[in-house]
């Protein structure tokens, strides 16, 4: 046991870990937002609700079908991603060409509907979700105790983030995607089915949110408002990082999570607001965002 700046190492590293966990979710969610925005030109306000649906789907699968965490990790993103595809076909395809304002308002309305629906059936108190057996317990690292599940969340979200980055920046399909973001008409002329690609991209972005939801279920309570709490912070993260760069979204998410965790140690009163304060500073110093192209 030792102290750093008068703070016991246990508390410091503990909060740092929580910061990293939050950062994983910020990274996953802002990544999904950026991918969707790039392709659909829509800020997906429903993202938080879809993250919440992911957590609830995992909870319901366990409760009613006895399907464990590992099954949920694969099945839930597919299910919720499919629901995202339905949403895109039913609603979003009609507003993509309009002013961006309408996309935001439409997805906000969808988020309200989903949240209201879940509150009706599950109340707002929240349900616990067990950490899977395989990841119970933790490691004593000497300077801190590292729960296995938290280590897994950080590692796995890093893997997912970089796999997404790789798929978009380094593969052939990703190059089509980037090309269609720049100039959809021209890409269509080359015989690529852009509307289908748009639909699939939205489904993929939503699946990422749902995956984050499954991973969040054992850490936070599964509750209907977990999505709206996080989505506004993620918006601030996106403003700070700018949506021009995939890697930028990932790095910004993790860094801001850590900063938030450290604030909890040194000045807990400001831990709710620190990300917004950073956003204000970034807007003053670098209005385009840290990784943003001027937009």
């Amino acid at each position, binding site marked *: 046991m030792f102290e750093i700046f008068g703070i016991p190492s246990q508390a410091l590293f503990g909060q740092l870990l929580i910061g990293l966990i939050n950062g994983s979710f910020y990274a996953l969610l802002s990544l999904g937002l950026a991918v969707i925005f790039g392709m659909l030109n829509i*800020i997906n306000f429903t993202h938080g609700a879809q993250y919440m649906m992911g957590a609830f789907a995992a909870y319901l699968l366990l409760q009613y079908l006895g399907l464990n965490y590992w099954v949920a990790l694969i099945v839930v993103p597919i299910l919720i991603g499919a629901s995202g595809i339905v949403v895109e076909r039913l*609603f979003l395809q*009609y*507003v993509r060409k*309009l*002013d*961006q*304002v*309408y996309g*935001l*308002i*439409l997805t*906000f*309305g*969808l*988020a*309200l*509907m*989903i*949240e*209201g*629906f879940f*509150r*009706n059936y599950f109340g707002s108190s929240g349900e616990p979700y067990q950490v899977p057996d395989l990841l119970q317990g933790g490691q004593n690292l000497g300077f801190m105790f590292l729960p296995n599940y938290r280590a897994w969340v950080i590692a796995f979200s890093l893997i997912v983030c970089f796999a997404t980055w790789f798929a978009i920046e380094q593969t052939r399909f990703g190059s089509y995607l980037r090309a269609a973001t720049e100039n959809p008409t021209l890409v269509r002329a080359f015989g690529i089915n852009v509307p289908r690609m748009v639909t699939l991209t939205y489904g993929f972005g939503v699946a990422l949110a749902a995956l984050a939801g499954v991973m969040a279920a054992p850490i936070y309570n599964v509750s209907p408002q977990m999505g*709206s709490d996080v989505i*506004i*912070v993620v*918006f*601030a993260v*996106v*403003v700070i990082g700018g949506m021009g760069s995939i890697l930028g979204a990932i790095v910004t998410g993790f860094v801001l999570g850590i900063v938030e965790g450290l604030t909890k140690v040194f000045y807990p*009163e400001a831990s*709710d*607001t620190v990300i*917004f*304060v950073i*956003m*204000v500073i970034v*807007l*003053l110093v670098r*209005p*385009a965002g840290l990784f943003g192209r001027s*937009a």
Partner: protein
Amino acid sequence: MEQAADPRALQKRQETTWSVGVGFALLVAFFAVAPSFLYPVFLMQALCFALFACAFNLLIGYVGLLSFGHALFFGWASYLCAHAAKHWGLPPEAAVLFGTASAAVLGLVAGFLAIRRQGIYFAMITLALAQMMYFVALRAPFTGGEDGIQDVPRGRLFGLFDLSHEMTMYVFVLVTVLAGFLFIYRVINSPFGEVLKAIRENEPRAVSLGYKTERYKLVAFVLSATLAGLAGALKALVFQLASLTDVYWTMSGEVVLMTLVGGLGTVFGPVVGAFLIVALETYLAQLGEWVLVIQGAIFVLCVLVFRRGIVGELANILHVKL
């Protein structure tokens, strides 16, 4: 501006004045007789939200800026007016002015930050700033946390009119809201308002014509925030309560909904929308969380099939401006 030189423009202007005049007369007539068959508190709530929505509409409808954080001005003005009236013992007119002026200052700061980014980022920044100030309200000692500021005294207006009488309060709210409404109408029909519309239609072109669009946007933002603050301050006196609900993001969403239902960029739309949504929430309150689902569904319907809103559709059918 010399648009009056063009006879067609002049004629169009007169038509506009004509239909808006009739609309305004109907509005005043309705609110003059309404207390005989509707609860004054319900009407006052609708009036406060109508002013709030009109202030919001000034930005989205005439400058094309979607603020998703207007609860910041509404809620904070409400807190500060309540605090001034209750703990400093200010008379109602001074408390309302104090709340409104604070909203103007907040609007100046928030607007300065938000207009540094274009397009949809503007909405995200305003939402994030409002959420930040929500957390400040949650933690600040004077706001009373979850309880809010309760039992705010309504006091005597100018030392003469006792506002604890429901009808006196109603007249005070009605006159103030109508004054705010006329002020907004004057702004959007001034040369300044024409520049705002030019920015909405094509900002680069307005810049190339030599307008400092950032300044215009900032002034419009401050005006909008100030009037939203006036609405919030009035609401604090009407309900004798300032609470966290008024600064939360759901409140920002509600004002978007009211304006959208009534009609973005119409003169009367926000008033009609506010009235309908307040009525909906009052009469459907026993449905609990379903209200959220209904609100969401209205959003979706409006965006998909009803983008002009009620007043916008009406104006389109009658070929007049409303």
